[in-house]
């Protein structure tokens, strides 16, 4: 027969697990091809919400971008930081006029074109790794810092 002590322990462990997996490491299932080949459709991972408690996101990091809560997020890579100018010429990303080296892009780059975009002090430019799609079919652009939930764990 379970005693009150056992029930209390189980309840505390369940509460701690709920808090941990909703406020520290948020489990995600990846849906879509926009981050291929780095992250495949259907893959499982975690978003580390503590990653940006003490520092700001850096270029090249893959982050979760929230919609209106935590159940649905976009997984994107940060290429432009606040205050920078970002452009795309024939698929090549440029930061402040300099071509950005992107070793994580292993697909063919389509000839996307974006005239220079000046980011404000609280905006990031995010994009997926799969550039072998039509520009109109790929969700990328500027996002407010408040929407960046955390960094992907691995």
């Amino acid at each position, binding site marked *: 027969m379970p005693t009150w002590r056992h029930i209390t322990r189980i309840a505390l462990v369940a509460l701690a697990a709920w808090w941990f997996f909703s406020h520290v490491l948020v489990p995600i299932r990846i849906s879509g091809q926009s981050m291929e080949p780095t992250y495949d459709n259907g893959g499982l991972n975690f978003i580390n919400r503590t990653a940006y408690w003490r520092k700001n996101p850096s270029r090249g990091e893959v982050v979760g*971008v*929230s*919609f*209106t*809560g*935590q*159940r*649905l997020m*976009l997984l*994107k890579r940060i290429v432009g930081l606040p205050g920078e100018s970002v452009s795309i010429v024939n698929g090549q990303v440029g930061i402040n006029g300099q071509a950005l080296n992107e070793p994580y892009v292993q697909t063919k780059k389509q000839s996307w074109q*974006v*005239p220079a*975009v000046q980011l404000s002090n609280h905006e990031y430019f*995010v994009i997926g790794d799969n550039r072998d799609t039509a*520009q*109109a079919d790929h*969700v*990328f*652009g*500027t*996002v407010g810092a408040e*929407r960046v939930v955390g960094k992907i764990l691995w």
Partner: protein
Amino acid sequence: MVRKNVIVIIALVLIIVAGIIFFWWWFGADHQIKKLLNDLEATASFDQQPTLIAASIKAERLTNYFSPDIKLEIKSDDGLVELHTTRREESKNYFLTSIQRVSLIDIQFLDTQIDAVSGRASLETTARVKVLSDFGETNMLLPLRITFNRLSGNWQIQNVTSIEIIKRYR
């Protein structure tokens, strides 16, 4: 004996407090609006190809969720069924421009954040819409901002706007 009475009194107080909390929660704006969204999901979703009559009935039922100054009407032109929403003050919102040979629409509201203040409420939610048509399956995620007014005790939708999560460049 005294101890037993104290336990009974404490139990009664706890039951009354729980009842008050339940009453506040049940009739609170958060619960009422989430319930309204659940009903709206069921009303707006369907799993059969809608005839003009079926679509008209749905539009009539949908009218109950919206503010009286919003008129919903079904139009049909050569078999194309359209749901139009029109504000009386002439501005037009087109939520759903056409339903043509659609066999399934499934709408779910996820990640709903409600902010309610005395008779008015606004919320942010993400509508996950699945459409099965002649063109195949389409899945959409639509982040929305919805404002509500409370009229005669009922919450009604006053305005729906989309939220741009990522500002896109094309």
